[in-house]
């Protein structure tokens, strides 16, 4: 009973509009960044979630008056490498590997860039408890573990401790470990009797394997009541599987990332819950951490970007069609202005 209450409490704590928490002390960003430059290499410019963050970073940098470019690419590691060399050859100060451009894919280029005096940072890549990969200078992390816990807690709370879940993960993404830890920890602590099965589907195979896998599992385990795709883009392939198996009434979907189309699916009723992050906030936080690195400030690991649980109850706050930066309030905008001392 305690477990269920804990779960409900945790959900409640993340259901409202989040508060701004300053990640560090204020500093004069404009002055210190004046002659600095940052190149952002997004994991893929074709993924809107990441593209929006990169775009917003650019706009903030423009406001602060320093040079920021992004390396347009389609998620192909060869293109990331070209971006790394481009930065090293054109005198950038920081390369920001954003949201999944995994430096383990190109360690030698990281070293080469560092030798040329470029700092390499990973942003929005790993959970808090994971070390900076591949020798990068800094790693600004997200509380993925908490997101994992929230997904577990949601199902525990909704089923009253009778969760029987299918969890879809992709092991090759660095954030997966934290998310999975969070899920297992929460189930362990709040609902030891809950059942769940973790199935790994590599990202390249999402389009071909998720649907048949989910269909098969739904047949094999008639008591399933939740499917938890840990990245919400997986839901495109999960929801038809549930519909074709004829289980739309008994099997729900809880997921993480706050991608707009999935928020729209909450409104349609095909997805029950999605944990979101504010992309604009992320842009602020990542840029903040990167500037601090260049301005000799304390390095930031915990970006303090908050999570919010979206359900049918609060989905109206994100707009229609959903906007990835809505539904989180705007206290953070002023908060960062104060931190960067850009208030006249």
């Amino acid at each position: 009973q305690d477990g269920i209450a804990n779960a409900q409490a945790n959900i409640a704590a993340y259901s409202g509009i989040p508060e701004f928490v300053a990640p560090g002390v204020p500093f004069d960003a404009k002055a210190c960044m004046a002659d600095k430059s940052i190149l952002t290499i997004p994991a893929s410019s074709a993924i809107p979630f990441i593209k929006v963050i990169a775009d917003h970073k650019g706009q903030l940098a423009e406001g602060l008056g320093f040079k920021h470019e992004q390396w347009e690419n389609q998620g192909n590691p060869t293109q990331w490498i070209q971006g790394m060399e481009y930065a090293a050859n054109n005198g950038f100060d920081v390369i920001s590997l954003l949201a999944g451009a995994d430096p383990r894919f190109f360690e030698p280029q990281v070293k080469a860039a560092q030798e040329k005096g470029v700092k390499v940072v990973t942003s929005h890549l790993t959970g808090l408890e994971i070390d900076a990969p591949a020798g990068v200078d800094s790693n600004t992390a997200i509380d993925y573990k908490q997101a994992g816990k929230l997904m577990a807690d949601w199902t525990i709370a909704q089923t009253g401790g009778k969760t029987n879940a299918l969890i879809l993960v992709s092991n090759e993404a660095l954030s997966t470990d934290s998310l999975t830890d969070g899920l297992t920890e929460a189930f362990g602590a709040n609902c030891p009797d809950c059942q769940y099965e973790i199935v790994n589907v590599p990202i390249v195979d999402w389009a071909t394997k998720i649907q048949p896998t989910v269909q098969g599992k739904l047949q094999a385990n008639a008591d399933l009541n939740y499917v938890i795709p840990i990245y919400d883009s997986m839901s495109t392939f999960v929801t038809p599987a549930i519909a074709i198996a004829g289980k739309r009434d008994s099997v729900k979907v809880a997921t993480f990332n706050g991608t707009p189309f999935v928020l729209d699916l909450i409104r349609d009723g095909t997805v029950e819950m999605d944990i979101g992050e504010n992309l604009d906030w992320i842009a602020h936080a990542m840029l903040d951490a990167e500037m601090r690195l260049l301005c000799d400030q304390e390095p930031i690991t915990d970006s303090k970007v908050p999570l919010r649980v979206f359900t049918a109850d609060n989905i109206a706050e994100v707009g229609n069609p959903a906007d990835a930066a809505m539904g989180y309030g705007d206290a953070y905008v002023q908060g960062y202005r104060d931190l960067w001392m850009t208030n006249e």
Partner: protein
Amino acid sequence: MRQSDLTYQLERFGLLFVWLAFIALFGAMRPDTFLTWSNFSTIFGSEAVLVIVTLGLIIPLTAGDFDLSIAQVLTLVSMTTAILDARLDVPLVLVIPLVLALGALIGLINGAITLYFRVHSLIVTLGVGTFLHGITLWIGNSQTISGVSPMLMEWVIIQRFWGIPIAFYYAMLLAVLIWYMLSYTAFGQQLLFTGRGREVGRLTGVAVGRVRLAAFVLSGIMGAIAGILYTGTTGSANPSSGTFLLLPAFAAAFLGATCIKPGRFNPWGSVIAVYFLVTGINGLSVLGFRTFVQDLFYGGALVLAVMVSQLVSGRKERGL
């Protein structure tokens, strides 16, 4: 043909038997879950889009051309449908003819370039497909678009006959149409002569160019139909969906050409090939194998099936 009627029948229905054998095997291992009608209705309902893409491919393949762009036609049409329907609120009765025309137009472009410039269809359709992908990303702003009207989903996967989503019946209807076209119309014969002996076709008075063009247009339309159904199945459109259907569809088309009418691309063979592969994947999933086993099965089954089919037919050299 006559003298080896039994072998020939064995060859024709070999894949069907292998499929049944797989069903028996999985059934024996998990009779309670695998051998249920609900499981089969899931299997049949789930791959209607792949069936249609495969059917679309075999038309130009019969005429001797590759259409690699069909997957991107699917994606573009899916995206267009979602945008028109969900964002611009155009009624479906307008959207559907519009996107079908779009598919036909793309087929026309593929055909026109291939024919007028005499370029290999492989490279033309690869290029056009990539270009279409660019357009898809552009118009959809690289987003997944959801919020498609429930009506579409209703008429694609929610409605059922005998427990199977209605999309399956659309696919079967198309298979019947294409089967009729290939077997019982002059156009079907012209396609065959065009594909297997272009000069011969021309000498027998087939307007080879027009036939090839028509084949491209038809595969464009099939791609568009698949795109509409895809949108209806997922209730959304994402900019990469179709990409993953291309290779499985080719696999099914070539595997299908080993049965029913061995040596020719044929719709029923394709349908059997798709469901044979899907049944295997579904069975592995029901049995709880890890997902990489699906690849091992898929690749292994594909190769083994054609190998066995060739063994049965006495390793005949095939033109295709």
